[in-house]
């Protein structure tokens, strides 16, 4: 078994061991297997990375086996390790391992400890399949697989029906996207006869181009991405997905899985290069999602919901970058976002842990001194996401804003304005969160306050590592690293001179957000209340997330059920089909009843009938012979 295969298979092994035997072998075993195998995967990835560098950038390719062969086309399960895959694999295994370690502390009291680690390992397996797959088919297997893992983990505490329902919602929303993704795959396969992504990319890099609309493919695949990466209109599942354990939110719903859509688009960049319409759509949806989610995040009161909407918004940033052709920059943001958002979620987890499960930020406050490590790491990550230099988020966000403005492939001032406004909102709501949680007076229940405690070392150490990465991660220029594979879009000469001023504007935006949050939420919080009262209507709408869930329920779910129940079942099956059948049966039995009257039991009557009929037959035959 090759090393790439091993990277993928090790977490699967962990899943099987923990899933089948974990309950019997105790927590020590579960932790060792659950964290050890991903760690080994990570080390192997590092080794592969070194091999890649040593091999002069020739991608590592490994074929595990042929899944199916039909006629002249074979579907092979093979893995492909180039720079892009390397970055993603490192993020997935690295952050993944850290979050596994964190989970040891976070989940230590849970009854289903082994099940939890089994699911987490299963997720890693599918995620690695997604990232390393050479064929779109393998990618799709991973794509659906992570959806499954997400479903299982969101509904991890399934006894709570709401949580189970949230898991289902995530799966369904993803499935809708997957249907689009499947269609995109089929178009590709029909047109090119292959699903191997290297061959697809080669076909679209060569001339003449394949005789198929790249935009059609791009749009269909992007539908899949809107599901997985929580973009409008399929983003609704992600906030609900916070029902799962917090480390899961950090790993799946912030750092790795939700960025799969971004990865997929970047992976098929050559297709999108030739799909200007699709790219425009991607940028448009990304920008819309970014600002839309950011406005919702302002008014949320659940610490994890704020972070969830922030994730949706940040994903919007990434898609804007993809839409303007800056694929490397998008991956850069994936990379920095993985660090600071994981750190934020884990920090939130630590807060929730400290507060015995309380998630409402209206019932927090003044925690900075009580849980200092959490506070510091959270602060660093918040500053990173807000784009305060020189933290990681600043670099990637700045580049996105720059290309949104200047890219020769769809950049525009309007786009830049929207994204800058979003950045401002981001800084504002993140610092609001920080303020409400850690500063000011305590609003906690006395009972809860009494038990506040800093988290164990396994959790705080992970927080520290992630905070460190959020701080310095930006100095590693991923776009530059990926440039041989994903060239950056050309910038028109005339715009080049705006670069430095725009950096300054970006920094100013981040600081302005900070200042605004401090102004509104600092002190007694009186200003925030007045603000909310003055704009009560807007606040209401934002608090209720624009009523999108209600809208979907009224427009999609209810009509579907109504049609199924009333039209298909009631009218179609019962009335029309069974009705026809029963009608025919009734007709037959009534006809039989009618004919049965003839059966009066009189032999002579029968004889008479025979005679009459014979006469009729004879007469008829005379006429026709």
């Amino acid at each position, binding site marked *: 078994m090759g090393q790439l295969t091993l990277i993928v298979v090790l977490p699967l092994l962990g899943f099987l061991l923990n899933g089948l035997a974990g309950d019997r072998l105790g927590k020590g075993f579960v932790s060792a297997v659950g964290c050890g195998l991903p760690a080994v995967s990570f080390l192997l990835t590092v080794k592969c990375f070194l091999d890649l560098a040593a091999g002069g950038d020739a991608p590592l390719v490994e074929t595990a086996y042929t899944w199916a062969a039909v006629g002249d086309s074979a579907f092979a399960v093979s893995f492909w390790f180039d720079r892009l895959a390397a970055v993603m694999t490192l993020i997935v295994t690295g952050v993944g391992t850290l979050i596994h370690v964190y989970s040891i502390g976070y989940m230590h009291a849970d009854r289903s400890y082994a099940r939890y680690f089994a699911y987490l390992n299963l997720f890693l397996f599918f995620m690695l399949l997604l990232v390393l797959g050479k064929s779109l088919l393998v990618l799709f297997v991973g794509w659906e697989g992570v959806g499954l893992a997400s479903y299982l983990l969101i509904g991890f505490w399934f006894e709570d029906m709401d949580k189970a329902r949230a898991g289902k919602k995530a799966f369904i929303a993803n499935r809708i996207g997957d249907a689009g993704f499947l269609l995109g795959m089929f178009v590709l396969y029909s047109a090119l006869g292959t699903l191997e992504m290297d061959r697809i990319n080669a076909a679209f890099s060569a001339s003449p181009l394949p005789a198929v609309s790249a935009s059609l493919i791009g749009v269909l695949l992007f539908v899949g991405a809107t599901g997985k990466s929580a973009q409008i209109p399929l983003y609704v599942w992600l906030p609900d997905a916070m029902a799962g354990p917090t480390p899961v939110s950090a790993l799946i719903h912030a750092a790795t899985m939700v960025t799969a859509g971004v990865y997929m688009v970047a992976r098929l960049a050559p297709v999108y290069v030739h799909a200007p319409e699709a790219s425009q759509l991607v940028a448009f949806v990304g920008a819309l999602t970014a600002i839309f989610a950011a406005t919702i995040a302002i008014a949320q009161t659940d610490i994890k919901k704020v972070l969830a909407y922030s994730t949706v918004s940040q994903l919007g940033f990434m898609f804007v970058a993809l839409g303007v052709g800056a694929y490397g920059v998008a991956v850069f943001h994936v990379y920095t976002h993985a660090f600071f958002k994981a750190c934020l979620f884990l920090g939130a987890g630590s807060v929730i842990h400290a507060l015995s499960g309380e998630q409402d930020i209206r019932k927090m406050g003044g925690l900075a001194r009580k849980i200092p490590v959490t506070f510091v790491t959270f602060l660093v990550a918040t500053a990173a996401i807000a784009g305060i230099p020189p933290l990681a988020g600043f670099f990637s966000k700045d580049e996105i804003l720059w290309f949104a403005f200047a890219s020769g492939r769809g950049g525009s001032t309007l786009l830049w304005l929207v994204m800058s406004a979003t950045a401002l909102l981001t800084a504002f709501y993140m610092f609001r969160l920080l303020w409400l949680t850690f500063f000011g007076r305590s609003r906690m229940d006395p009972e809860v306050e009494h038990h506040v405690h800093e988290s164990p070392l396994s959790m705080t150490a992970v927080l520290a590592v992630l905070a460190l990465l959020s701080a310095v991660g930006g100095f590693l220029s991923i776009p530059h690293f990926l440039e041989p594979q994903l060239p950056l879009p050309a910038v028109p000469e005339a715009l080049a001179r705006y670069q430095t001023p725009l950096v300054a504007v970006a920094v100013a935006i981040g600081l302005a957000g900070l200042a605004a949050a401090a102004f509104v939420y600092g002190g007694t919080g009186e200003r925030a209340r007045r603000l909310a009262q003055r704009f009560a209507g807007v606040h209401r709408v934002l608090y209720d997330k624009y009523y999108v869930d209600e809208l979907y329920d009224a427009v999609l779910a209810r009509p579907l059920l109504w049609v199924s129940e009333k039209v298909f079942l009631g009218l179609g099956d019962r009335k029309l089909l069974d009705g026809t059948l029963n009608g025919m049966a009734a007709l037959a039995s009534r006809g039989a009843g009618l*004919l*049965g*009257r*003839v*059966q*009066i*039991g*009189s*032999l*002579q009557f029968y*004889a*008479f009938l025979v*005679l009459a009929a014979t006469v009729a037959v004879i007469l008829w035959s005379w006429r026709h012979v």
Partner: protein
Amino acid sequence: MDKTQVLLALAVALFALGMIGVVVRRNVLVMLMCMELMLNGVNLSLVTFAHQAASNVGAVLVFLVFVVAAAEIAIAIPIVLLLVRSKRTLDLASYSDLKG
């Protein structure tokens, strides 16, 4: 009108009379006899045709009909006797038990 036609007409007439008898008479025994009459009508037509075609096949068939008639009556009469024992009447109208 020649001989063959007359005989065939007689055959048809006998058959028709037998049939009428079966339908209109009440007495089971009379009905049985009317059936015999019908058989006779058929026999007559067979013989006539055989005579006209100078073939012996008709005669063979007639012979078979004789046997059938004998067999029929051999079973029918005991059945009638049994029926009469159960309901003490030969009236067919009282045996209409097999109503639909």
